[in-house]
């Protein structure tokens, strides 16, 4: 990238962060009343909304029902005004379908689906504003929504991206850093057990650096975990005091 310095000599990134620093994460659970669970999450300027319905009876054809566990059904969509250039369709394009599949795989790994055989859990996420790390924001928001819906999970799923620029691993890439086209890793982690729910990497990265980048990503995921955990605890506290009155 000519003309744009992604990492200054002093070790600052374009938005003034340090290499391993996250963007500001703010979140709220229970945004909507009609859904079973909902959450809103801001990761820097990326804003995501997640809604969970279920577990409920299978919708549509019953033949899709799994006899030993619940079916996790996801839909990823982006508001038409969320990106710099207006999108023509909110969902149904190739990229959204891929994201949908990734989300499904991630949450199948985290939700205790065997508790609800022959039923269905819907997770719908919506990107309201895109500024890099869409997948990660969606996973984090969906985790909160699933917790809000009271669906048992093995652990939180925390996701964060990491890149590698000028021999330095960078955590939580923003849109400018993503667009630069360097190597990029998206990691969804179950932080307590250190299990990977999903790992995706694109572009080219030397094998020797992989460990470093993974380290950065998993550290970032654990940082996200700390924030999410606080949000959940605050929310639960708030709800129980309301109930106590």
């Amino acid at each position, binding site marked *: 990238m000519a003309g744009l310095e992604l990492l200054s000599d002093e070790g600052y990134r374009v938005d003034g962060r340090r290499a391993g620093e996250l963007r500001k994460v703010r979140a709220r659970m229970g945004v909507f009343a*009609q859904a079973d669970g909902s959450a809103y999450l801001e990761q820097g300027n990326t804003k995501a909304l997640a809604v969970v319905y279920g577990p409920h009876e299978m919708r549509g054809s019953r033949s899709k029902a799994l006899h030993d566990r619940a079916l996790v059904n996801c839909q990823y969509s982006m508001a*038409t005004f*969320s990106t710099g250039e207006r999108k023509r369709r909110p969902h149904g394009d190739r990229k959204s379908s891929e994201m949908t599949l990734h989300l499904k795989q991630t949450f199948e790994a985290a939700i205790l689906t065997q508790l609800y055989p022959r039923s269905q859990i819907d997770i719908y996420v919506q990107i309201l504003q895109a500024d890099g790390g869409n997948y990660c924001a969606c996973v984090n928001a969906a985790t909160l929504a699933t917790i809000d819906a009271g669906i048992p999970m093995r652990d939180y799923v925390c996701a964060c991206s990491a890149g590698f620029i000028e021999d330095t691993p960078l955590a939580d890439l923003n849109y400018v850093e993503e667009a630069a086209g360097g190597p990029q890793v998206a990691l969804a982690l179950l932080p307590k057990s250190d299990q990977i729910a999903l790992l995706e990497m694109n572009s080219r990265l030397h094998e020797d650096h992989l460990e470093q980048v993974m380290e950065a990503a998993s550290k970032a995921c654990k940082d996200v975990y700390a924030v999410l955990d606080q949000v959940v605890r605050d929310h639960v506290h708030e709800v129980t005091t309301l109930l106590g009155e």
Partner: protein
Amino acid sequence: MASVVLSEAEKVYVVHGVQEDLRVDGRGCEDYRCIEVETDVVSNTSGSARVKLGHTDILVGVKAEMGTPKLENPNEGYLEFFVDCSANATPEFEGRGGEELATEIVNTLYRIFSSESTIDVKSLCINPREHCWVLYVDVLLLECGGNLFDAISIAVKAALFNTRIPKVRVLEDEEGSKEIELSDDPYDCIRLNVDNVPCIITLSKIGCRHVVDATLQEEACSLASLLLSVTSRGTFTCMKKLGNGSLDPESIFEMMETGKRVGKTLHASLQKILDKEESLGTTRQKVGFLG
């Protein structure tokens, strides 16, 4: 749409309540629920607004993009509407499930904006026949708790009020080729005059009375409703009967009177909120979805 199933007894309860001018949530027949309006919630857009009306939650983003004017109106820009009934609102909208409702809403929006005086589309023209601003008005339905049309029209009006279109200049060199120069100053922008943008007032007939701002339960009790789009001066730009029932001619005239009255009040209070938000400027604490 998210449907509620009401038993006969519940319906009778709602209808009798309306008869006594006392609705299930304590409102009178001409009262709106509390409306929350916030503008400038999505920074990627030229203008945006979020409106929460009871459990109905609407997010509208307006994006100004450059395009070519339509052949029949070479010196005007135009508005394009798009409605996304997202699965957030109800699982029935997953995939293509929401498209039918979305088309209905889009058609209604085009209809209420069809009259020339609504928005000054001539100001959106950059140079005739070649360049103009196209305003993409994208409506995102996040939750529906009754009275969608009114909430959407309020959100669209608020978002258009919030819209800032960058100023451009057309430079012409000696050979006649034109170049468009964008103003460097981000505060140098066109604002739209939304005084004539109407709001939709939907009046639902319940029993032999009518109510404004029906909740989902009340919508389930109503066979027919009248959709009116009312401007701030109390004139109508669109009227439409919705639902599978019929209306008495006399009740239509009553509904039109109510619509005019309620519409004027609604416009006045909406304008007040928008002006107040505007005056706070950048000092305003943005709440968004975190509040």
